[in-house]
């Protein structure tokens, strides 16, 4: 892929440049031919060799490796499979009731996670923003960021401890007169456990970008709103929320990108055959089918399907938000 010639001939600043020391000075002209570019910048290009090898081997090769969804694959054989089988594996999973079960589970867990983990950081950021004592605000922030730094295994291990029959949650259940509940063995509790632990992990860290966006809102707007007779609630509604809307939209689009994979690693750690009916999601299902049982092509077909849904979600969310609110990530 080469850049258009016109850009090589005339030095046109490419779009808005980031503010910085080089703002005022034109970049050296782009060389016209590859030979001249290579002669002048070969040392720069040489620095890119290893990173490019990384992308080629560990990103693009497996991307192409997805063709095994349409080919017969023998473990230990060619990573691109042996021969074409067409849409056999696609048809196989589309007619597999087990697949549709995990598909529904994925959608449910994804939607629930989004509904709780997306707005709560906004709320927490707004509350933190009202704290007038700097020292207290810092303290709450530092504490609430902490779960973000824990390994998912630690989080799972803590869940096992807290939710066990002898754990604190059941102590409280018994205190209010209920019977102990084996939370992690009950499929009707799985979603609650998953989503609330997800909130615990992400709510604090999620406030960072909002808090930064809140500081950029012009204080004159609040004064103007106050003069117009807006109370605190109306100020929040008409000044603060529109001020952080671009951040919210961007994060929502990014969240949609990981919507289909959900918290795969955490589910893998905390689910068990008893909780499969609600806890098994596409990612865990394809892990069991593909890696545990060795049906690589079948699992690759599911994975490809999942990736395509994720891609569609992000692209369409981006397009909708560009038209509706004028914010997009590309």
């Amino acid at each position, binding site marked *: 892929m080469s*850049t258009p010639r016109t850009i*090589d001939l005339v030095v046109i600043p490419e779009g808005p440049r980031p503010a910085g020391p080089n703002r005022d000075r034109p970049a050296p*002209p782009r060389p016209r031919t590859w030979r001249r570019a290579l002669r002048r910048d070969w040392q720069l290009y040489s620095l890119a060799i290893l990173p490019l090898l990384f992308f080629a081997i560990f990103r693009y090769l497996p991307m192409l490796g997805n063709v*095994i969804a349409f080919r017969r*694959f023998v473990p230990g054989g060619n990573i691109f499979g042996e021969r074409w089988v067409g849409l056999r594996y696609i048809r196989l999973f589309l007619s597999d009731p087990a697949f549709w079960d995990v598909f529904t589970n994925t959608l449910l867990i994804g939607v629930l996670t989004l509904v709780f983990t997306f707005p709560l950081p906004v709320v927490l950021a707004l509350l933190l923003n009202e704290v007038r004592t700097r020292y207290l605000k810092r303290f709450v922030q530092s504490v609430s960021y902490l779960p973000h*730094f824990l390994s998912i*295994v630690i989080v799972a291990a803590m869940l096992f401890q807290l939710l066990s029959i002898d754990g604190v949650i059941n102590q409280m259940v018994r205190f209010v007169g209920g019977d102990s509940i084996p939370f992690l063995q009950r499929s009707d509790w799985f979603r609650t456990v998953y989503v609330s632990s997800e909130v615990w992990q992400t709510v604090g860290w999620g406030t960072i970008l909002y808090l930064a966006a809140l500081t950029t809102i012009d204080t004159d707007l609040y004064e103007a709103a106050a003069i117009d007779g807006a109370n605190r609630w109306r100020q929040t509604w008409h000044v603060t929320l529109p001020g952080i809307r671009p951040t919210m939209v961007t994060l929502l689009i990014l969240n949609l990108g990981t919507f289909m994979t959900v918290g795969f690693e955490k589910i893998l750690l905390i689910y*068990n055959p008893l909780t499969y009916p609600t806890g098994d999601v596409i990612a865990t299902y394809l892990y069991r089918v593909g890696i545990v049982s060795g049906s690589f092509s079948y699992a690759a077909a599911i994975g490809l399907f999942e990736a395509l849904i994720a891609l569609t979600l992000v692209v369409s969310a981006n397009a909708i938000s560009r038209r509706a609110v004028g914010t997009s990530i590309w």
Partner: protein
Amino acid sequence: MVTIDSGLKDLRAARPRRIRLSKGYRVFQVVNGIVLTAVVVLTLYPFINIVARSFSEEAYIIAGKVNLVPRGFDLRAYRLVLNDELFWTSYRNTVVYTFVSTLIAITLTTCFAYVLAKKHLKGRNALIGIAVFTLVFQPGLIPNYVLVTSLGLKNTIWAVALPNAINVFNLLVMKTFFENLPVELEEAAAVDGLNTYGILLRIVLPLSKAVIATMVLFYAVTFWNSWFGAFLYMDRLDLFPVTVYLRNLLAGATGADFMGSAPGDVVQSAATIQAVTIVLTVVPILAVYPFVQRFFVTGVLLGAVKG
């Protein structure tokens, strides 16, 4: 000068007071205080509970009597875990994996970010596109597994270090940082006869200590916390990092059987042993957390400017 400064300070201090504090707003402040206290308590409660369990006698735990304070103070579980050779092997593995993986990751990321920051470079947009496209369309688990297996990386450190060597978000953060360095310095160095490598090593890197430190932390925490790569690509007990060691304890406790082959699974672990292992795994993170937290916040904000 002093008077102006203190005058400004007075103004700033006076500002919140100028906003009329209605009764409703004062009620809100109280409610807000209660909510934020609840956030702090809910975040810290699990940690305190698990520390309490780790120091308690097994009988009290089974009876469901351990809450915030250890009951029947008992260090036997600590002694058991600390005397377990496998625990130390796993810990050493974690340290080695984290160190090597971070070293590779920071080297590759820095080199590529530096190249991408050079606006005059022919083919720059294509290079950026190659990196960014992998964010939008990610290769799935199965092709990755097939690839790593067929490259013969199973049961080697490379299976965990190489597949995640460049994080594109980190790459973009560094690229933005390099773009904003003053070009004059590099030009002067070039006039003095330094080549590209010399400029990068002697001029650019010393100016980028802060951003490199942040990136090293980002990578190191990710690698320290990771478990799935090792779980997937390693099947010998003495190769597992401490996260997988802990996972095997949990799997033993639930009786769940994901990978029948892992021998750790059959261990029926006591609740105290689990609690102790959690505490010992978390301690290093908690120890460095207060010092590194602000770097992370800066790093996230740097990335957001571009992202």
